[in-house]
């Protein structure tokens, strides 16, 4: 039997404004017209304004010489470089502080979140104190605090705080020794990669063996030992082919070694500490979302505590934790734009700030900046949808 579309009920045709389908069409047409008219109006105004100010539109300015320097850059950059390169430098700096921020916020957040659930009353209270203090104070204020009240109050380079005369902290930033690799050092990355490959093989072998015989070795610990031990072993065998260039005081500042500018330190600290307080809450509520019956059932099956966590609690808690966690990561990336307030050269600071002021290309610059963040947001949401679809619990 074929399914035929149902005939519309007979009767006098209603006037078009009462016909549901037509009314929807009409409404949407009006909406499109309104949005289009609004955009046209804005575009017209903008063109008139730009013409009045003598600004030419287009992305030609990206090839012009910028004429300003940037204090921290992951690629070669000088005041002779183009605005296009400025954009790349800013983008890389944003990604750098975001990546390190995500890393630190995750570590602090998970530690505090788990501590919040500790059976130790004092530890749990301390963790909740951390959460309540840091998430209720504006991020910008925290950035200012670290930058102006802490890092700018540090002594001058001559009176630096030093860690065993190898690392120095002063008002100009943190100065760390820089490794200088001698010939033969190349073996160590090779050993490291080999150790990782061996660990992966070990984990796979261990899983197969467990499936086949039920026996297991502690693969996690063995891998950790391998990954740390093997490069160390090679390091010792090859006679430690590395020297450290220790920063030293030259005139009024330190030279040599790695310099971490105070703007980066302040932004990174504030972003990590602030975001960690939200991550801690997510971790806590994610673990608490797992009913206690799950633990009891696993215990009744005589699983030891470690396996209860690994096989029952963590896999379920991660499903709850990961979606809000990724949106916190996204927030962190967006919040890294506050860099501009203390002059850390991120995308917004060097591009939507300095470049915009110098060129006056407001539309292009803001559009490019927003496009970067929108792209990141889009990628993260795509990941989240994929993840949710993958791990969603099958329900009836």
């Amino acid at each position, binding site marked *: 039997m074929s399914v035929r579309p149902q005939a519309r009920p007979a009767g006098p045709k209603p006037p078009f404004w009462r016909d549901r389908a037509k009314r*929807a069409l009409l409404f*949407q047409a009006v909406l499109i017209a309104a949005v289009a008219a609004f955009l046209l109006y804005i575009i017209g105004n903008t063109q008139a*304004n730009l013409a009045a100010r003598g600004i030419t539109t287009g992305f030609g300015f990206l090839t012009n010489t910028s004429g300003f320097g940037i204090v921290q850059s992951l690629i070669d950059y000088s005041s002779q470089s183009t605005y296009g390169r400025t954009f790349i430098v800013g983008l890389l700096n944003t990604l750098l502080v975001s990546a390190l921020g995500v890393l630190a916020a995750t570590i602090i957040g998970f530690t505090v979140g788990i501590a919040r659930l500790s059976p*130790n009353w004092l530890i749990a209270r*301390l963790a909740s104190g951390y959460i309540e203090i840091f998430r*209720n104070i504006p991020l910008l204020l925290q950035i200012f605090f670290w930058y102006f009240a802490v890092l700018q109050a540090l002594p001058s380079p001559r009176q630096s705080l030093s860690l065993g005369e190898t690392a120095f902290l002063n008002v100009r930033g943190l100065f760390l020794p820089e490794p200088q690799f001698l010939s033969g050092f190349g073996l160590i990355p090779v050993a490291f990669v080999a150790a990782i490959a061996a660990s992966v093989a070990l984990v796979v072998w261990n899983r197969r063996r467990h499936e086949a015989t039920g026996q297991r070795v502690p693969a996690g610990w063995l891998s950790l030992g391998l990954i740390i031990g093997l490069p160390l072993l090679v390091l010792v065998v090859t006679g430690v082919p590395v020297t450290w260039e220790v920063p030293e005081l030259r005139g009024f500042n330190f030279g040599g070694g790695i310099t971490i500018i105070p703007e980066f330190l302040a932004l990174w600290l504030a972003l990590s500490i602030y975001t960690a307080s939200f991550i801690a809450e997510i971790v806590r509520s994610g673990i608490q979302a797992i009913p206690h019956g799950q633990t009891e059932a696993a215990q009744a099956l005589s699983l030891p505590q470690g396996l209860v966590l690994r096989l029952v609690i963590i896999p379920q808690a991660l499903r709850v934790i990961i979606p809000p966690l990724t949106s916190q990561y996204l927030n962190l990336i*967006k919040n890294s734009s506050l860099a501009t307030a203390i002059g850390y050269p991120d995308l917004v600071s060097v591009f939507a700030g300095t470049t915009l002021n110098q060129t006056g290309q407001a539309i292009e610059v*803001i559009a490019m900046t927003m496009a970067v963040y*929108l792209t990141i947001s889009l990628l993260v949401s795509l990941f989240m949808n994929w993840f949710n679809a993958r791990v969603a619990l099958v329900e009836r």
Partner: protein
Amino acid sequence: MTHNDEMIPERPAPRLTVGPLAWLRANLFSGPVNSLFTLLGLYLLYVLLTPAIQWALIDADWIGTSRDDCSREGACWVFVNARLGQFIYGLYPGDEIWRINVMFATFAALLAWLAIPRLPFKRWVAQVTLLVFPVFAYVLLYGGHFGLPVVETHRWGGLSLTLILATVGMVAALPIGIVLALGRRSQMPIVRSVCVVFIEFWRGVPLITILFMASVMLPLFLPTGMSIDRLVRALIGITLFQSAYMAEVVRGGLQAIPRGQEEAAAALGMGYWHRMGLIVLPQALKMMIPGIVNTFISLFKDTTLVMIIGLFDLLGIVQAALSDSRWLGFAVEGYVFAALMFWIFCFSMSRYSQYLERKLHTGHKR
């Protein structure tokens, strides 16, 4: 076989399992690792708190008028004291400050009315708060009518500006958010896509770029010769930003209302706007309040960003005061004061939203 009708009397638990000692054992010293953690925690508290208390309370200077009155080792609260008026009212003329006070007192009274569960006429008060009060507040603060002298917006600042930005942003964003959320659930594909694009766009970019856009691009969008106040530009940016987040809160609230409610309303012959306005939204709004409070907290913190485009909110004015040559070197005091202000507002609001959530949950279980 056996039976025993005699009641075994209730006995107190063995001494080591109840009482303060048992509490200590169970919660602080239940094993060697736990005891170690407790000692570490105590040490951490000691290391953090003693110098903080020493600095902020014991060694602090409280009274005086200039930095010369700050002779002791600790905090110089004299600085905050001397600048308190500015921190709260910005550069608003001294004789007119009563206008800000009256405005906030009225607002606080209205809010208190709405927040206390027992008081009647909620609907009326809510409408007055949302419709009449903004006009009243604007006339009172800006002046120019009823013999009130005009106070230009560049003189507004401090905590009062922070509160104004946050509340105006919130109140303006709520209706836009509702429309966007309804649009996102619409059956009409074009309406839905327009709303989705709008929401995701503003949620996808940092507030700072929106504020930059509002301050440098917005003037370009207007007809030549027309200018727009800096504060209004910031408010437009904040409202657009906030409305996207609000839309998501509203959507969450709408999703929590069972489909049956809308179907029942449709079965009673109600049209779309009646179904939404009379049946679905009033129920959903109740569910949304905790979410609304939470986005308000975020917005409240985010208003600090307006200092980057040159407005003097609480943080902005504290930052400006720090560079006053007569008061150099009191950054920590200034930040601690601002942090404390923000913290008190945010913490109490988050507690309120948690209370509401608990109330909602119990309401549902019934």
